[in-house]
């Protein structure tokens, strides 16, 4: 088995390997806890939950 074959097999194993390490890191940081809070991250006071955005079609021409 030459160096390149080792590199290739190592490469194929690297993605799931790194993913497992990252998963462990995330778990230790508490990223997998509090899913309700994480789900709200796209929202804030300016654009809160319950407020739809981007509703522009079939209402009125933006040309006016």
């Amino acid at each position: 088995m030459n160096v390149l074959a080792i590199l290739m097999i190592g490469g194929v194993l690297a993605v799931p390997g790194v993913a497992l390490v990252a998963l462990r890191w995330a778990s230790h940081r508490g990223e997998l806890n509090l899913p309700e809070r994480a789900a709200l991250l796209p929202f804030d006071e300016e654009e809160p939950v319950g407020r739809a955005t981007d509703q522009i079609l079939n209402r009125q021409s933006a040309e006016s």
Partner: protein
Amino acid sequence: MSASSQTFSALLPGDVSDDSSKRALLAEIDASCRVPVLFFVISGLLWLLAGTALALVASIKLHSPGFLASWEFLTFGRVRPAHLNTVIYGFASQTGIGVTLWLMCRLCRVPFVAPGLATVAAIFWNIGLTVGVVGILIGDSTSIEWLELPRYSTPILFFSYVLVAVWAIITFRLRREQHLYVSQWYLLAAILWFPWLYATAQIMLLIEPVRGVVQAAVNWWFAHNVLGLWFTPIGLASIYYFIPKVIGRPIHSYYLSVLGFWSLALFYNWNGLHHLIGGPMPAWMITVSIVASVMMLIPVTTVAINHHMTMWGHFGKLKHSPTLRFVVVGALCYTATSLQGIANSLRSYSEVVHFTHHTIAHAHLGLYGFFAMVMFGSLYYIIPRITQREWPSLGLISLHFWACFLGLALYVVPLSLGGILQGLAMNDASVPFLKVVEGTLPWLKLRTFAGLLLGLGHVAFVGNLVWLLARVFGPYRKPVVAILMGAETAAVVGK
């Protein structure tokens, strides 16, 4: 604050670095993104127009081989890889990077850090790609699918990409929101996966080439992973952000979204070798790839359930939001192309469709139906916010959507069916090969028509964007309809 944090904080614009707990306003973040994001996006859309023109030339040649046959730079063997590379590295990668930059700033809650760095990256990306595409057209293609760009152009692209990755790491390091949203997981993974894929493939195929069938193995490991570990994470990150934002409702199950991400990270990387079913590869390698491909049912199903359940009760909003229309169609295409890909990876199915137009339909359902549609939807949301201007023509938005939607359907459905018929005929020893080729002609002509519809949609989108940008240089007018003011205001205005 540590020394390294102080060093990073010095990169923040203005006085926002003084108080790390102070959140930047969304408008401030959006305005800070304007130049670098627009640079990537406009470049990407110009490459989309070029890629569409090249695609049409290649498509017409498939049923009318004499078309533009007198110029060697427009022969099929050059036009087709030129189309592929302009679309994946010119359009898809650049718009993907543009959307990634904006999403990272929004979710990290920081204004754009070091915009000059990203702008220089965009300039170098376009220089590298221009050199590469011209190289393909003059006959310097490497002949390795998805890596046709000549060796002299790829270091420029790679340098540009390193700048983008450095920017992303700095932004992530400076984030003011410590908790990560699932979109950030996808984006960070994509940013770190792509250079590793690209560098490995370049080294093993072009710089220090491996021999024999290992070349094919590396080639398809790369080509498949570019879709699954570069474009797919960016597309899914966008879907997970924009569907909740537009309908004003959090994602149905955050746990499912996390499960989808980690199962993609664990299984996708093994999928590529199912492209070599029937080839002279060790059978166990193909089998491992097939098993991993079937395991993709886990992330695909979790993502599909999550998106559908989030939209449940809000489908009426599709009527009013261009972003939602494009993104939801993209999400549906993600499910469809993933399930189709799993079927294609099975030996019995692959025996029929492997060397047929079915594969072309599958690739376009993934890269166009899923990724490009999600990018279009994302840009309808992002561009008005970073330019502080509304889209000038709602008619052009509708034209863009319907032309692309119909073009996509006319492209994918007939070619998928035609590919199966083609495969069955090729496997029948009593059918002459010429008869098989003649049997594909109606599907190929329909494909050209579908390409014209897609081109029409692209022209409508770029026309609308040019119109909007022209207004950026004009006097500011207060928005009348609502992207910039929210749905409630829009409803009032609508009355």
